[in-house]
């Protein structure tokens, strides 16, 4: 499964165009941040950490919790 995901990822990157600094106006908008609302993602991660067996994927660190 990991191998399939990695190959698919590399293929998707091959489609990249070279984007110049002056073409990054859209990418620079706050709404285009990969995490546009950190607290929302933080709270979602806490909810699902306590209700599901999976965790992680988005970063390292963060506080522990006795809820799981």
């Amino acid at each position: 499964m990991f191998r399939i995901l990695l190959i698919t990822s590399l293929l998707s990157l091959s489609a990249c165009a070279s984007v110049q600094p002056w073409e990054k106006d859209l990418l620079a908008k706050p709404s285009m941040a990969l995490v546009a609302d950190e607290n929302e993602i933080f709270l979602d991660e806490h909810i699902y950490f306590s209700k599901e067996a999976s965790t992680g994927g988005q970063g390292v660190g963060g506080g522990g919790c006795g809820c799981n």
Partner: protein
Amino acid sequence: MQLKNTQYAEVNTQTNKTDNDNKLSIKSKLTMATCALLQASAPAAQAETGEWDIDTAFLYYSEDARISVFEPVISAEKEIDDDEFVKFKLVYDALTGSTPYGAAPSSVEQTITNPSGNSTYSVAPGELPLNSSFRDTRVAFSGDWTIPLDRLKRITVGANLSTEYDFNSIGASANYAQDSSDRNQTYSVGLGISSDTWDPVGGKNTEFAYMIDPDGSTPQPKGGTDTKSNFDVMFGLTQVINRSTIMQFNLGHSTSSGYLTDPYRYISIIGTDGLPLSGVDLVNAGGADAFPYVYEKRPDSRARNTFFWRTAHHFTEDVVNVSYRYFTDDWGIDSHTLDFRYRFELGGGHYLQPHLRYYTQSEADFYTNSLTVAEANNVEFASADYRLRELVTTTLGLKYGVGIGKNSEFTVRAELMNQTYTVTDPNLDANNLELAPDLDAVIVQFGYNFFW
């Protein structure tokens, strides 16, 4: 630093733009590009050096007839020097309500000892047993410091601690990120360690020991405190795909070791008649004061791997943000998580954002809904924790946001969560019981962001 280190490649200017972008002068575009090159971090809006970017949220989470959670969060970030940031976050949790601790429904009334070990509660026939004395508060604090090494490289170090009545955690993390010279890629590697300590009410329950009736004369076998440690490593790549699309990939590996059992959870012991063990069979198995439940036991190590992909794409006005996570561990759990957010720009700083999340997982190798006496004597590990079942979680929500003045934003979201389980139990299947009723929950969150 949990989320921030994922955002760098998308050089951030702090300009508000409209669909007039294409009409901007060359000078304006160069100004924006210069800002983009100088700005390495990704605060949600335009804090200036010396200003605190304050982000507050209040979460209300409520399950149908079970747990309720109130959780305020405040975070504050400040650029203390060029590209050098400090960030602090304070979280408070208050939980109350009822939650299942592992006992299976039965066609007869059940009597179960509370986690404190001092009293009992009764469960009606056919009902899913819920422990109603669940109550906890938690305070968590974290701090991050981002230090630029040069124009393209930076390191973020962080520390966090959290405390609740019976559980404490302390951790540290470090993340190194480097942009390509054209800033269309960011490579990162992060490390995290943490140490957790359980100090359960009355001591941790002995694994596979029978639950004892507190009105009897036999003491419940108990241990003291126990610990576990966690280690995380993550490799990340953020890639600008084209002028309106950015993509992120993370590969993560985590290990936990030590006491990974839940000190309060237990498993029903079922007799040959399909009912909770009773009479002489129960006395023979657990002693004169035993109730027909044994405390769970999990392996003392766990290794997890994650693959995470996220893409944000800008349409003419709207933005779509979609992510997928594949998770697998050596407890036999595989999961897939799909998350989709679409931001409809309504104009005038207003937006609506529908959210869909779909999650599915397989059950842990040692998950069981109940045990027979023989099984309890022979299995190495067992848990009836509903979160280790085969399950599906579906969440559907809507968020509304509006900019207030130049530098602040108010948001509110409401979501409905449903969790369904697939449980089979050869010990109980003949009883025609509803073994695993759905879990429904409401999520409401208010957010306010401003500069100070």
